């Protein structure tokens, strides 16, 4: 018999234990049922995912690096054509070396500098388009979802716009406006918000008639506050996931458009331009590095954001919070 049990038995002997205990009704009220916190649990589960942590660190350092890369010592210009001082010929198709870390391309530009410059361009487009999608797409989607009167009209409008293939729309815009960084951003912003708006609308329709929203209506809460206080906070996790997935999506579009010749002008390095250049020399085994380097960077970015988005979605799903 343990010492504790013996103590208890002795305690039973104690007549005092058979008297009434003091009753405290406040104590009965104070029972904190759980210390569960939504964001705390989300963070905890996300941190448990080691792959996601690694990729998050990788992406953070990648973005940091592309930003500071031009200011580092010994960096070359991404657009300068390097010329062999001895012969006066451009240094075309140089293999990776100490001087040109990733080699040079067919006209003698430094591939290392071009890749980071291109990544910077592509990521910048993706982030600008992503912010627009979030701002405009969520705004339209929230109003569309919550204000019943406009739902039928918006759905029809959506069907019409959505039935025009995005490719054709993007190509058209790229034709009308001159190919430039701005054109790219405008073209992609013009189409990207649609999916986001539809997504947010569907999510809002699911939760808008829950009792707590009825309660807010009974209290006379204006629609704008119902959307910002009652609806969007419930959607933060799915929206963050959509953003994470929209970044590789936008980069993919940029690569595709540039690849078919409607994207950025060739004097602006981007992942799309680099891949296109690399593809042209793909058949020569010795020059394949010109395709491999940008392809690797593109794949790492795409896969990382994709995995991160899904890891976050899993972590933020309350059903996984145990």
């Amino acid at each position, binding site marked *: 018999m343990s010492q504790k049990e013996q103590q208890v038995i002795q305690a039973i002997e104690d007549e005092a234990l058979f008297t009434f205990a003091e009753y405290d009704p406040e104590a009965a009220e104070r029972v904190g*049922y759980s210390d569960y916190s*939504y964001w705390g649990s989300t963070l905890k589960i996300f941190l448990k995912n080691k792959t996601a942590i690694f990729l998050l660190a990788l992406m953070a350092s990648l973005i940091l690096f592309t930003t500071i890369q031009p200011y580092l010592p010994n960096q070359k210009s991404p657009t300068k054509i390097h010329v062999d001082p001895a012969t006066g010929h451009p240094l075309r198709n140089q293999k990776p070396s100490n001087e040109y870390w990733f080699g040079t391309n067919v006209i003698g530009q430094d591939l290392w500098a071009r890749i980071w410059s291109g990544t910077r361009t592509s990521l910048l487009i993706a982030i600008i388009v992503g912010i627009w999608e979030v701002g405009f797409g969520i705004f339209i989607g929230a109003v569309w979802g919550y204000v019943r009167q406009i739902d039928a009209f918006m759905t029809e409008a959506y069907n019409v716009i959505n039935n025009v293939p995005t490719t054709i729309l993007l190509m058209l815009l790229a034709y009308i406006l001159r190919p430039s960084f701005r054109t790219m951003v405008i073209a992609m912003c013009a189409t990207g918000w649609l999916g986001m708006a539809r997504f947010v609308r569907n999510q809002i329709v699911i939760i808008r008639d829950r009792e*707590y929203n*009825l*309660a807010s209506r*009974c209290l*006379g809460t204006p629609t704008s506050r119902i959307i910002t206080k*009652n609806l969007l906070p419930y959607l933060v996790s799915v929206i963050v996931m959509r953003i994470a997935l929209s970044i590789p999506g936008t980069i993919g579009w940029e690569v595709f458009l540039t690849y078919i010749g409607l994207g950025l002008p060739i004097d602006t390095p981007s992942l799309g331009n680099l891949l296109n250049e690399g593809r042209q020399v793909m058949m020569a085994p010795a020059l394949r590095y010109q395709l491999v380097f940008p392809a690797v960077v593109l794949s790492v970015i795409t896969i990382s954001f994709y995995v991160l988005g899904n890891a976050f979605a899993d972590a933020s799903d309350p059903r996984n919070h145990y």
Partner: protein
Amino acid sequence: MTQNEREVIIEIKNLRVEFKGKGRKPFRAVDDVSFEIYKGETFGLVGETGSGKTTIGRAIVRINPTAAGEILFKGRRINGVIPKELDREVTRKIQMIFQDPMASLNERSKVDYIVSEGLYNIKGFKDEQDRMAKVSRALLEVGLLPEFASRFPHEFSGGQRQRIGVARALIMEPEFIIADEPISSLDVSIRAQVLNLLSDLQKTKGLTYLFISHDLSVVRFIADRIGVIHKGRLVELAETEELFGRPFHPYTRALLSAIPIPDPQIEKKKKVLVYDPTCHDYSKDKPKWVEITPGHFVLANEEELRQYEAMAG
């Protein structure tokens, strides 16, 4: 005091509420319903799932639009298009308590915001200090501790959450509260807390309740008068003990016979009546809403009325 002298706070006249269904003909959730609620009383509205009882409550708070009829609050019409000022007054004076405390609180907001949400809408406070004082007072009134304001709803149990919902309504200083099945999703041991709280608040604040429930035994305990609703139509209305003692309509009688009684000897012997709607022959003689004895209304046609009068003796 006779009923004619009592002040009427809510009057519902020939109310009809329709929902657009899949077919061409809209679905009539509430059909030709009329009743009055007196100031300071608890009016129980009893019916089964889909009977339209919740729809009536939501029509009063202007969530469900009405198709026909009138809803009067202190003599002024509050359904349909009304001036903004009256809308604001209705929002303030008529409040609602919801069924499921797990669904009726915004999980992403702190109790502090949930309780003072209405105050923000009517700008019902002088400054931040005044607002916090009001929140604390409302929480204390429902038996919760002011320190709960800084917590999120998920930390609370069902009964506590329901009381947060009551505090949210109380802070508006309403005169009339619609309680839509306020205890049916609570645990047995918690129900009494909430019922007692509602009774206490009625006594101290002179509140009027519309208590909507499917559970006749709860309504019997809390309501002064009871209306029984079946498929969108009110079939019987009377003072509580009158209704239990002398039910006329066969649906009321079936409903009363089905109440489970927590006494095994009685419960095991009880005979359940089954209501068969085809027992009414309304093909020629349409039913009317008739006051059969003072304050006791029933939906019946001429022939049924004669039978009921014979029963009443």
